[in-house]
């Protein structure tokens, strides 16, 4: 399938998915001290000229964080931006280290689930 179906975004589905991991998402967003100690643990950050957008904290705050804070009421553009963060800027290698013990890969994976539920997926075979 190389074309995405044009579906309306269903906030209720997103809210249900967020509800499944509500406690973890809430804790992760609250506990993140924005200390940036996770940055060097991401090889993408280290090899892309230390661009802040590859920091694990940046990634989960701007993907699952956006979805959670907007309570799932996002438009397709936002979802596309989130798709690019969680699929292009992260490979879910789970090497990321957080001094607070936040499970960042779980947050990214959950954001991927939410995107998929709305038909927003990464095109792995795009030319």
């Amino acid at each position: 399938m190389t074309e995405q179906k044009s579906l309306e975004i269903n906030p209720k589905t997103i809210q249900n998915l967020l509800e499944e991991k509500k406690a973890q998402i809430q804790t992760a967003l609250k506990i993140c001290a924005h200390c940036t100690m996770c940055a060097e643990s991401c090889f993408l950050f280290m090899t892309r000229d230390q661009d802040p957008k590859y920091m694990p904290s940046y990634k989960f705050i701007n993907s699952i964080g956006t979805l959670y804070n907007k309570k799932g009421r996002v438009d397709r553009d936002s979802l596309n931006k989130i798709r690019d963060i969680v699929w292009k800027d992260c490979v879910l290698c789970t090497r990321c280290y957080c001094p607070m013990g936040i499970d960042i890969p779980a947050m990214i994976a959950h954001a991927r689930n939410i995107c998929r539920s709305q038909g927003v997926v990464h095109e792995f075979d795009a030319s």
Partner: protein
Amino acid sequence: MHQIYQFVGGPLVWFSLIVFIAGTIHQIHRFFTEFSQKKATPIYKPPGFKKQPPIGWFSKNAIQTRLAMIKDWFSKENRTRNMAMFRATNVFGIHPVMSWTTLIFHVCLVITPLYVLAHNILLDEALGTCFFSWSETLTDGMTFVLLVCGAYFLYRRLFVRRVRAITTLYDYVMLLIAVAPFLTGFLAYHQIYDYQTMVILHILAGELMLITIPYTKFAHMIYFFLQRFFVANEYSFGKGDRRW
């Protein structure tokens, strides 16, 4: 002025302590019920792994066994592998300035209020007992060190690109709340500006910090230790039988 002082130094202290203690207990409870699940996937066991019998603390050779284990940690064949813990590839090696600054900051944050002479005099008057006190020069110095560390954090938030990328107003407010008790205390002790006002601000700042601990990102005070002991990952101290 005196009535304000009576109020903030009386009922408001009780209120903030109750919120702090109840909030902490509430967050600990949430950790064990809502936030973390008990281990669902088995931990990988390398081939040839044999589970050791539990050592305990009070059985016959318990203490000797434990002392032998500690001695063994330093033994020649284990030394290289164990010293790798202090290798330069951990966060202290990669970020020495930030790591040491935050360590010193947190030590001063927790220790200073407990052993400041002024606090102990008040405690003694109120409860009859108190902690021992350190010299005022020492606690004054520790407060100053803490303020310098706080200034370093502010510098990072403003001028370090990667920190600025994820900084919001919330972070500045939290830094202010953390530093305010120490700043106002420092100013009050040195009687800079009006002492009466400064002391009331100091008490209010301390109470504000107490009530924000369980319900903002300061909750890392509670969660840090829970996570290190109870959540299985390569950094946990205990056996870690929970996962996020």
